């Protein structure tokens, strides 16, 4: 790996001076022909890409009210300019949300507004030319679609909507991004992002079962493709193979075991992630999510529970019902879908689980809210349940829990730096610098409260922090799932079953 230097961590998050082009060099790898074609995109850049791109923008404007309104009504007040983790970490002017969106807004003005057609210089309208396209490639892949800017915008302008539209336009003219298109191709081919075939999955689950038997003395199961189970568990595929994700998977398994609820994992839908969202494609989102619905029907389950994965939860919670609903074949007494945290919390409330907090006495825990959970979805019945329910699980699992700076948690949380399709090695410099705000807040509580564990509920956050925290001299074991804590604390065999 190349030599990357992490920014110096200050006592607090300071807003840097603007620099022009400090990240202009960092582009994602272009998509390969074999990954573009199966998704219905041109294999290479079209000869008439300008016309096609502008036409596609026109089409998107007619399809998305968010885009039409958000491109129109920005007043350039600047409230968003210091809110993006990538701007704070890189200083690049185009990583200020308003400037990023303006890469599209300036093209929109040029071709779709009277003012931009007549007086381009006056209103900042620009041609969709080679230089502009290169800026799109660069900076629309330096956005993690985390929506932090939209919290502070007086009109709720959501840069994620603009980034998604930009990526869809680029895909339509044959200028795709390798990381996301490759992963989506794998989902369609094999069923999950990591391209894990069924025998490998089977082997891993069997291994983990024997591991848990050895460690706990209980036959905690990780069933695969068992028709007639009550629950279909859809976890991010990283939960099957990566650390610390696996720890949470075992946590889910123990909760099901202790509750006495039969569940199954599906080899066809062994993936909650939906990178269709990252590339902005409604059709891909729909197609990727569809196999989960089909599996739920084929396996004849009554409920669907989604594992710890941020963007997957957004797609599941906010979009599934629209994409492939209604889910009227499932048990209407439970929300569709249900988050694993809601599932565990419900069991805790009903007294079905017994927790030994001392098991986590070695930890002083804090919580990192993942962006898509915090700002694009909900848990429970009330607004903000997405913050309270995971915290309730943490509090039930350990004695020592502290919050980070409130400007960096709940809906103000900072992205891990690797979300929205940026979790790829060629963007490592961006990922390291983008993690700076979160790392700063984490280091504050590490110093003040001796925090040594940051719990969270997102597979991408886990992967990103495991890789990036060590570059800031923080051990990778500092990060883990909420269900990793649950896994440590849950008492197996005591008053088994739902009461």
């Amino acid at each position, binding site marked *: 790996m190349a030599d990357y230097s992490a920014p110096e961590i200050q006592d607090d998050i300071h807003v840097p001076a603007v620099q022009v082009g400090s990240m202009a060099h960092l582009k994602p790898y272009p998509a390969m022909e074999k990954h573009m074609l199966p998704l219905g995109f041109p294999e290479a850049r079209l000869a008439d890409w300008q016309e096609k791109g502008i036409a596609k923008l026109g089409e998107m404007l007619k399809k998305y009210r968010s885009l039409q309104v958000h491109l129109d009504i920005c*007043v350039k007040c600047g409230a968003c300019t210091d809110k993006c983790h990538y701007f704070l970490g890189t200083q690049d*002017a185009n990583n200020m949300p308003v400037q990023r969106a303006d890469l599209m807004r300036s093209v929109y003005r040029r071709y779709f507004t009277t003012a931009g057609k007549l007086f381009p210089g006056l209103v900042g309208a620009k041609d969709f030319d080679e230089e502009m396209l290169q800026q799109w490639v660069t900076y629309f892949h330096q956005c993690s679609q985390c929506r932090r800017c939209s919290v502070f915008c*007086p009109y709720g302008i959501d840069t994620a909507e603009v980034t998604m539209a930009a990526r869809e336009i680029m895909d339509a003219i044959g200028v795709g991004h390798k990381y996301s298109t490759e992963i989506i191709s794998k989902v369609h081919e094999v069923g999950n992002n990591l391209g894990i075939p069924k025998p490998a999955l089977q082997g891993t689950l069997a291994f983990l079962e024997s591991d848990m038997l050895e460690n706990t003395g209980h036959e905690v199961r990780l069933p695969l493709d068992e028709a007639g189970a009550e629950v279909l568990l859809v976890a991010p595929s990283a939960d099957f193979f990566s650390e610390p994700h696996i720890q949470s998977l075992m946590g889910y398994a123990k909760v099901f075991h202790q509750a006495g609820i039969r569940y199954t994992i599906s080899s066809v839908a062994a993936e909650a992630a939906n990178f269709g969202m990252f590339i902005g494609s409604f059709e891909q989102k729909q197609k990727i999510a569809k196999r989960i619905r089909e599996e739920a029907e084929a396996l004849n389950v009554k409920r669907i529970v989604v594992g710890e994965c941020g963007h997957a939860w957004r797609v599941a919670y906010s*979009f599934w019902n629209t994409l492939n609903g209604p889910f009227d074949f499932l048990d209407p007494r439970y929300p569709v879908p249900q988050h694993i945290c809601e599932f565990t919390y419900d069991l805790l409330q009903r007294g079905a689980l017994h927790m030994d907090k001392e098991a986590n006495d070695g930890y002083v825990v804090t919580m990192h809210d993942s962006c898509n959970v915090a700002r694009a979805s909900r848990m429970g019945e009330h*607004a*903000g349940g997405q913050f309270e329910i995971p915290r309730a699980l943490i509090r039930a699992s350990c004695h020592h829990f502290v919050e980070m700076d409130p400007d960096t948690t709940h809906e103000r949380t900072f992205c891990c730096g690797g979300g929205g399709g940026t979790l790829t090695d060629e963007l490592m410099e961006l990922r390291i610098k983008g993690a700076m705000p979160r790392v700063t807040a984490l280091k504050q509580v590490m110093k003040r409260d001796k925090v040594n564990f940051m719990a969270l509920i997102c597979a991408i956050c886990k992967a990103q922090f495991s890789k990036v925290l060590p570059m800031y001299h923080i051990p990778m074991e500092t990060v883990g799932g909420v269900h990793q804590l649950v896994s440590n604390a849950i008492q197996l065999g005591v008053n088994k079953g739902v009461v």
Partner: protein
Amino acid sequence: MLTILAYLVVGIFVVGFTQRILLYARSPAPLKIPTTPAPTTTAGVVWRLFTEVVFFNSLFKGDKWAWLGGYLFHGALLLVLIRHLRYFVEPLPPFFAHVQIAGVVAGVAMVGGLGLLLLRRLLIDRVRHVSSPSDYLWLLLLLGIGFSGLVMQFFLRPDIVHIKGAMMGMWSSSQSLPLLTLGDVVFLAHLCMVAVLIVLFPFSKLMHAGGIFFSPTRNQVDNPREKRHVNPWAAGQHTKESTHG
């Protein structure tokens, strides 16, 4: 002649503004995308939008100086507009006599708020960087309107009857050019700047005034699990469970 111009200005505004709002209203919202935590009921969404429009809630969270400048300006503008009704309403209800002083104070506050916004735009490197010429021109235009209004209020009272006479004379025949006083010129400048603002309104960022009500991140109810939201243009959508949002 002036009357025709006035109708033309207002006509362009009404048609342009309506067209824009219809465009927003008719654009489909394919997915549920409220910025959460978001209200789970329609009443909650109404309250959310109310706090955004009346208190600039999100902006307050995001940028205190922008909030102060923006709030001063918009609040004062509202009072000034109410005060201006006395030029259009006959007979004047007694209420307007009471807001007279408030309106004058508001005029000063409005210019102060605009000044603050202009200073911010010039002094903060990030805001300066994101500003295009039109962003400054809007502020200067509004400052011009505010200043000319204050000048008439405090220093040079225009004589409306005299202006009208002079204007009519100018258009009607080749009589000797009527003399306009300095106050008259300020008034005409004030009027022209307001006309420019009204005409350009629907074609500019000033559309944030109507657009905010159509921003899906703010106006959607957070209930995607409870109520199926249908994408009107997606293939294979069972449209019978259609919902609004």
